[in-house]
């Protein structure tokens, strides 16, 4: 029975000419439960929006529909993530996987499920530098840049502003630690001095001990590499209360509306970096997200990245001319990178059409996607500064 099923799938994939009204499945492997469960529904919805756009256009492989299949990676439990991925790959027979969300789960799934089975994975949010060097045989892609790059950009900005002595506090996980190392290394290379580089744990009620240690280091400015509704906010709040620091240097995890509402008035002059840039597609993405009912019109962590990941899977499928796993992998780079006609959010149908005509496209999307040769985005960053209790973009790096 199983073999028969397998044989039919293979035959269908082989037959080349795809019949109308066929559906293929794409796995949506996200941490629906676990530490980032508040972020993942909007991320999954953004990716599904892109897949729906491709399906509804009727252009995809002559009318093929994409059916998203959700599965829970739990973010922290690598064993459960692998089981969920195994289900997507061997039971649901998805042609590609959107995910996983957290870096640990992504690494486990890539090494143990996706690569052995030859299934493409596109993660919108795994930013660990370690993922650059895993032996993924070209099957792992990500639309969020590695943290290593952000640290370098931020260090350059700090140095350019003439700041030579900083204290660093980071949230104690792979994100915070990786970022603090890449920032620290780059900053010292540029001739800056790091008075103290200390971690903080999220979810504590009181950060006065951490702030006292940072203050005692004698640095004038504080680099906060954490989360805006977690320890990072607590550190800034305490620093302001104690008068320890008045200017803060922030990474992407710290930049968002909620912190401005709470503390924006006292943070004037603070600055930081945020992935993104002069995105040609930013406006279009806002419109598409609004029409698609994405929370906060798509403005939020990794939503644009998720849409792009979904769009790339659909476009690669079209470029491959079939929903074959290996062929999708071969075409991922081609549809994402120049040369070709630029495709913005909401233009997936146009992209599919061009591909069907045998033309080349360059998917730009919501976040300026361009893959490096290891299948990740180099990332452009916005330099933002706090003015009148708002983050304002100053420059793009």
């Amino acid at each position, binding site marked *: *029975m*199983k*073999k*028969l099923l*397998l*044989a039919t*799938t*293979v*035959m269908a*994939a*082989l037959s080349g000419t795809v019949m109308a009204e066929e559906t293929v499945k794409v796995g949506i492997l996200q941490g*629906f*439960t676990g530490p980032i469960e508040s972020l993942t*529904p909007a991320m999954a919805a953004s990716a599904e929006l892109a897949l729906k756009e491709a399906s509804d256009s009727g252009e995809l492989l002559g009318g093929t529909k994409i059916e998203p299949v*959700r*599965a*829970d990676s739990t973010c*922290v*439990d*690598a*064993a*459960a993530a*692998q*089981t*969920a991925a*195994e*289900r997507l*790959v*061997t*039971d649901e027979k998805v042609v590609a996987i959107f995910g996983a969300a957290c*870096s*640990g789960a992504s*690494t*486990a799934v890539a*090494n*143990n499920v996706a*690569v*052995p*089975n*030859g299934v493409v994975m596109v993660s919108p949010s795994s930013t*660990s*530098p*370690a993922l650059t*060097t*895993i*032996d993924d*045989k070209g099957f792992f892609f990500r639309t969020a840049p590695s943290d*290593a790059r952000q640290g370098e950009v931020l260090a350059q900005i700090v140095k350019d502003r003439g700041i030579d002595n900083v204290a660093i506090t980071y949230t*104690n*996980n*792979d994100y*915070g*630690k*990786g970022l603090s*190392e*890449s920032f620290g*290394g780059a900053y010292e290379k540029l001739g800056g001095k790091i008075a103290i580089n200390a*971690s903080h744990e999220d979810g504590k009620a009181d950060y006065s001990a951490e702030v006292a240690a940072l203050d005692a280091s004698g640095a004038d400015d504080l680099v906060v590499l954490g989360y805006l509704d977690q320890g990072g906010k607590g550190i800034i709040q305490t620093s302001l209360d104690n008068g320890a620091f008045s200017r803060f240097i922030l990474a992407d995890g710290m930049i968002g509306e909620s912190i401005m509402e709470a503390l924006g008035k006292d943070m004037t002059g603070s600055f930081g970096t945020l992935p993104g840039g002069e995105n040609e597609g930013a406006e279009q993405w806002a419109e598409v997200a609004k029409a698609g009912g994405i929370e906060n019109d798509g403005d939020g962590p990794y939503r644009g990245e998720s849409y792009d990941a979904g769009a790339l899977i659909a476009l690669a499928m079209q470029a491959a001319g079939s929903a074959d796993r290996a062929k999708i992998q071969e075409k991922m780079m081609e549809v994402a990178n120049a040369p070709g006609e630029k495709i913005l959010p909401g233009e997936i149908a146009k992209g599919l059409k061009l591909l069907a005509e045998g033309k080349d496209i360059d998917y730009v999307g919501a976040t300026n996607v361009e893959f490096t040769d290891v299948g990740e985005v180099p990332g452009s960053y916005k330099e933002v500064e706090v003015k009148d209790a708002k983050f304002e973009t100053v420059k793009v790096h």
Partner: protein
Amino acid sequence: MSQAHTPRSKPHNNTLRAILAFLVMGGLLVLVGYVQSWSLALTILNLCIISAIMALGVNIQWGYAGILNVGIMGFAGLGGLAAVLVSAEPVAEAWSAGGWFMLLALLLLVATVLMAVFVHRRLKGRRFHHFGVFMVVLIGYFAIRLVYDPAVEAIEAVDPSKTGYLGGLGLPVIFSWVVGALFAAGAAWVVGKVALGLRADYLAIATLGISEIIIAVLRNEDWLTRGVKNVTGLPRPVPYELNLQQSEWFIGWVERLNAAALEGLGAAERADMLQALVIDSSGIFVKLCYAGLFSLVLLIVLLLCVLALDSPWGRMVRAIRDNETAAGAMGKDVKGRHLQIFVLGSAVVGIAGAMLTTLDGQFTPGTYNPLRFTFLIWVMVIVGGSGNNLGAVLGGFLIWFIWVEAEPVGFWLVETATSWMDENSPLRLHLMDSAQYMRVFVMGLVLLLVMRFSPRGLLPEQTKLH
């Protein structure tokens, strides 16, 4: 089973119950194989086995001796550490940068401890007893920091984005299962010496705290574990799928097995079909290898547990559990047995922890959380039936199965239940969106149901009257 029969008086019934329960469990896994895929069924089976071993470890402590250990996570983490230290490739640069100083620091630590013990013994009952010990520890501490701090800094500075730690020994990862047991046993011995004198509830809090300390150390001592930067790509004890997919013998083997399905196809179709089959089979083959290794460990541990529980030692331990004072009055060494049990149980958890890291192929200290590594294991023991080895194994299998299958089954249930509704009806969409969260809900439900209808677990403890 009706209320009239008390399980205690019917050991025969219990055996039947165990056989039935395991048949049902096996049936569930086979069902997954047929309905979903064999590869998935084997993935679940492998994790079931690991869970069962972990549950056996807890059962040794709680079921045999009534030791309330809620620090299982820490011992599982130490098992994971063993997998890294045994199997990761050594980082030569880091060793030359600070490795030898680190060894010196370790020697200093050992020397300090020995010295403190020596002074403690020599000065016992004399003046300056406490002061002497205190001074030894103080001097030792500063001497260690003098060597340790620069060593840490030097090691962590070695290419921090890729290594920044000493690495392991580069030995086959399978040795780590033994080393993991030793690590966990060593830690348990220290913990037990300090905390086992405590009453059950206090011991629970102490172990909870200690497990958090162990995980905090694993997360922060980057020179040893890379901390939250994770160690990935640990070598496997079994072949890699990609290597199998390229090896002649494996392809030939798959070809022969599927000769019937491949017959009568055109050359191109046949090649593609064969490739798909080879990919599929390679995954199953690798998982079968793991399943073989894990089952072997499970059988050995289970056999030892059964023999131990059935021996005079087992009776003594249960006597201590049921009435410490009476057992003490009979001349049994209550504290000694407790320590022994605590060490043994933790060692078994350590084995399972090392096996889990082996299966994942990565060590991620940031992801150890008590819900998954302590309380889920407790649920396994309680649902399975504490004090009964087979019960712990059944609990491990069943709870892990529910833990991962609740989601797809939840989807299926919601889909079936709402199939009469409109495709886009808000209620249906809402229910579909909540299907993922069924897992936690179902876990609570199972625990409640079992506690209500079979309070001593699915396979209650069998008390033999000797």
